[in-house]
């Protein structure tokens, strides 16, 4: 179970999270939705303890990640699997070696057993035949699945997915969606899926959290979130993918004519 309470985080002048509260329950797939640049990846980095909040608490299974010492943090990370946006496979290792990497780093299993586990993990993502290939030889979808196999290598209790659907063709997107759901249900994981693909997220997740402008603008089951749209115009705009609305209003703070150095506003800005 992951819990964020009164979380504040900023990068330079820009406030990324402003007193945000979130919960991620065990056994559920929770999707975190939001426009690009709202700090969704930062959220995962906060949960993993790679960055620390300005104030507030990040708690994973009772451990305060935001204050944990390095040893504690590393122990906690062994129970987390992360699927990075572009896979982040080690480019000079084969797919099989990539999956074996965390096992070799953290277990004293013998090679024969590691080989078996690697085969099981690769079978689960449908890449058993690609075990001797290098990441550069894989397609985008295959690389993402190989990375998923690596993230699952140590049987984590928590899975964090960073934009798993970005740049995927419809078929591999479908494969990934099913994998995320099945892994979560079969192993009773806490899954956090950070994405901006609204329909995909709503279709597989148990709960949805929508963030924009540093705060939560909607949360609940997919149906509940759809129902909240009337209360929150930004939420409605995001769910519909509408071009006009509160989410892109910030850009017109300075009229175009000012930036162009014109003395008279010709009215093009409206």
């Amino acid at each position, binding site marked *: 179970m992951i819990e964020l309470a009164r979380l504040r985080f900023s990068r330079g002048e820009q406030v990324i999270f402003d007193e945000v509260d979130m919960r991620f329950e065990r056994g559920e797939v929770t999707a975190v939705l939001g426009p690009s640049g709202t700090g969704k990846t930062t959220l995962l980095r906060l949960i*993993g303890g*790679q960055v620390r909040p300005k104030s507030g608490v990040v708690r994973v299974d009772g451990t305060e990640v935001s204050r944990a010492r390095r040893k504690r943090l*590393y*122990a906690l*990370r*062994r129970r*987390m699997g*992360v699927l*990075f*946006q*572009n896979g*982040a*496979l*080690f*480019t000079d290792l084969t797919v099989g070696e990539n999956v074996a*990497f*965390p096992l070799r*780093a*953290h277990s004293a299993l013998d090679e024969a057993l590691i080989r078996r586990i690697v085969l099981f993990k690769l079978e689960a993502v449908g890449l058993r035949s690609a075990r001797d290939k290098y990441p550069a030889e894989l397609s985008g979808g295959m690389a993402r699945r190989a990375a998923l196999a690596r993230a699952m290598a140590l049987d984590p209790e928590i899975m964090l997915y960073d934009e798993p659907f970005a740049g995927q063709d419809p078929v591999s997107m479908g494969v990934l969606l099913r994998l995320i759901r099945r892994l979560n249900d079969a192993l009773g994981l806490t899954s956090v899926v950070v994405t901006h693909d609204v329909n995909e997220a709503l279709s597989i997740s148990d709960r949805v959290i929508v963030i924009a402008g540093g705060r939560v603008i909607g949360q609940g089951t997919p149906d509940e979130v759809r129902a909240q749209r009337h209360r929150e115009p930004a939420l409605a705009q995001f769910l519909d993918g509408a071009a006009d609305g509160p989410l892109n209003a910030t850009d017109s703070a300075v009229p175009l004519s000012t930036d162009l150095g014109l003395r008279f506003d010709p009215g093009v800005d409206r």
Partner: protein
Amino acid sequence: MSRLLEALARLGRLMIGGVRHAGAMALFALDLAWVLIPTWSRPRDVAQQVYAAGVLSLVIILVAGGFVGLVLGLQGYNILSTFNASESLGVMVALSLVRELGPVVAALLFAGRAGSAITAEIALMKTTEQLAALEMMAVDPMRRVIGPRFWGALISVPLLAALFSLVGVLGGYLIGVVVLGVDAASYWGQIGEQMAAWEDVGGGALKSVAFGAVIALIAVYEGYTAEPTASGMARATTQTVVLSSLGVLGLDFVMTAFMFGA
């Protein structure tokens, strides 16, 4: 007046930037110091980096050392023979190489050949989130990626410098003794007589260890802190070559002044 102030402000900015850079590197060096011993818990990682940085630099080091020796032999012979002292050719070549040219030129070549490669590799691993992935797998990238590369460079530089000097002395022999007819016995004999094991060989070795540390630190630091973009990587690799070359030359002056100054 305002232009003067502006120039002053720019100078100040430059200096503050430099100091900040140096400070950041010092903090990084402290972090690195913590993992230097634990890195050896995986000796194969270090061996791999000695191979990548050192063994693969052998060709350029040996060829360059040979040419430098040939040139030294030729120039030395021309000068020494005007004083009828061409028997001293051996010791002149050997001292120049062991004290100065070996450590310095080998280090400069190493910075260009291997230092830049170390920086580029680490920077790309950072850009493609491989370092972040290591961290999230509870594997410390400092220990697993940075430490072995630091050791690899630190071990390689003195060995390469020694080989550079050796090949250089052979090059001097080739041109001086074989081509120009200097007596072989006095070529080697004078080296044996006049070169001090401790001061000359030891001093040169100390230099190249120091140069190795400078290049290794700069190379891994620049890679680790590279901006994760294409131009950021380009800047980092350039920075490695420029900073470590300047560092080596500056440090060489300081060390020479202390060791051979008075």
